[in-house]
């Protein structure tokens, strides 16, 4: 038992050192469980106290990570680098497009002040004016400042910076983005609101979990009792596709169309879910690198 505890502690310490804080915590908890169950260890209480200190220190590390800002303000050097590295337009062909992409990159990295500065400069350039304006509004909203976005829009309305067509494009974009963010009502009622509110129908799509892999336990056939793990190559709603090598003849044979799979582990980014599915299609791939292999579709029945 002592050996086991030592091994677990070693792992926990290493995980902590590597920044795998969640994994380290799990190991410490395992040690705690073992200690609590044990009646033979003479220094049990002391060990538990030591362990509690380690867990507390680990929790402090976790808090520090959680407290760290997700988009801290970067130096101007870093901002210049972001603009340079993440603008994909050919700079010598279209300098303004490249500058716009650079500014968008800044915004995507959460560098809103720097991005706003760049977008305001680009308002002077006819070819990118509308895009710059849309991004200015988006930046204000991302910064949690819808009033700022609205004030900006009102200022533009009172100026001759935009043609009526251009301004309409900007306001339509603003409406759309407010709708998406669920802010439309709030803004429409804000004092001085001038943008016309159009009612858009919301797309209501049923969301399915993204499944990356499955582990199927067969209750009959050549693989009876075995668990077979397979990667998901494609997913459309509740139908997942698996590619099975033509060499896995028994597996292909087992997965006939209509076969119910009652014990399936679905690996998703959230967790592993146990559920069931039904083989809905089986086709042999006719061309490409997977020629001869089989594509099997499984319809997820329950998750």
């Amino acid at each position, binding site marked *: 038992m002592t050996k086991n505890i030592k*091994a677990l502690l*070693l*792992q926990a310490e*290493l*995980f902590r050192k*590597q*920044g*795998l804080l969640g*994994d380290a915590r*799990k190991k410490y908890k395992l040690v705690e469980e073992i200690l609590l169950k044990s009646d033979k260890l003479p220094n049990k209480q002391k060990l538990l106290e030591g362990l509690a200190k380690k867990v507390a220190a680990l929790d402090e*590390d976790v808090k*520090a*990570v959680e*407290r*760290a*800002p*997700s988009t*801290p303000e*970067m130096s101007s050097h*870093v901002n210049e*680098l*972001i603009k340079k*590295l*993440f603008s*994909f337009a*050919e700079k010598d062909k279209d300098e303004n497009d490249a500058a716009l992409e650079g500014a968008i*990159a800044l915004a*995507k*990295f959460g560098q809103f002040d720097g991005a706003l500065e760049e977008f305001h400069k680009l308002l002077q350039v006819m070819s990118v004016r509308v895009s710059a304006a849309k991004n200015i509004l988006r930046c204000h909203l991302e910064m949690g400042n819808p009033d700022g976005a609205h004030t900006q829009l009102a200022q533009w309305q009172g100026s001759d910076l935009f043609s009526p067509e251009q301004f309409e494009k900007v306001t339509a974009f603003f409406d759309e983005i407010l709708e998406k963010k669920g802010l439309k009502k709030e803004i429409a009622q804000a004092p001085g609101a001038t943008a016309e509110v159009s009612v858009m129908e919301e797309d209501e799509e049923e969301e399915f979990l*993204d499944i*990356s*892999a499955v582990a199927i336990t067969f209750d009959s056939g050549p693989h009876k009792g075995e668990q077979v*793990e397979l*990667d*998901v*190559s494609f997913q459309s709603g509740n139908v997942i596709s698996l*590619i099975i090598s033509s060499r896995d003849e028994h597996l292909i044979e087992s997965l006939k169309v209509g076969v119910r799979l009652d014990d399936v582990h679905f*690996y998703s*980014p959230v967790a*592993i879910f146990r559920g069931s599915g039904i083989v809905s299609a089986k086709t042999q791939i006719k061309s490409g*690198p997977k020629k001869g292999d089989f594509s099997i579709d499984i319809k997820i029945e329950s998750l």
Partner: protein
Amino acid sequence: MAVFNIKKREIECKIVYYGPGRCGKTSNLEYVFKSYKKQVGGEMVSINTEGDRTLFFDFLPMDLGKIKGCDVRVQLFTVPGQVQYASTRKLVLRGVDGIVFVADSLDVRREKNMLSLKDLQQNLKDYGLNIFKVPLVMQYNKRDLADEGIPIMPIEKMEKDLNRQLKVPSFPASAVKGEGVGKTLQECLKLTLHSLQKQFSWAQ
């Protein structure tokens, strides 16, 4: 996407180190920065947050000199591995020419590796790229931890988990010790330049 200047006979390409959080992507770049001084074309930039976690990306420019009559420059990037930085990860991946997928050999990170590979596949797909066609190399990192008595996965298991369908070149490595880092990068460069050569016919 690589930039090819026909007049100047210059090519600039982008290689991205991808993988789950804390798998050793930054350690790979740090080793390259320390050990390939001749080829490193500038400072390494790391944008980190608390606990040395990559927040945005790491960046290391390299200058490989003339290859088949063309000056070849490479930009090495890492993505942030943590799940919550999905949008940044996708942004860094844009325009990628070659990928090193760094998988963590630790037993406890098995599922994270698989999820990260799936995430890579999805992000590539969103950019219209096929994971089966992009120059890709797999690295099984942290092999040295076995010597410290820490449970790690056998290479065969990792191959089965991650490389069963892709069948791309794979390398065991210990990025902190530098083992396998050079080989991984060299193979990725080889595949990437071969692919670009086909694309641009720049060696003709």
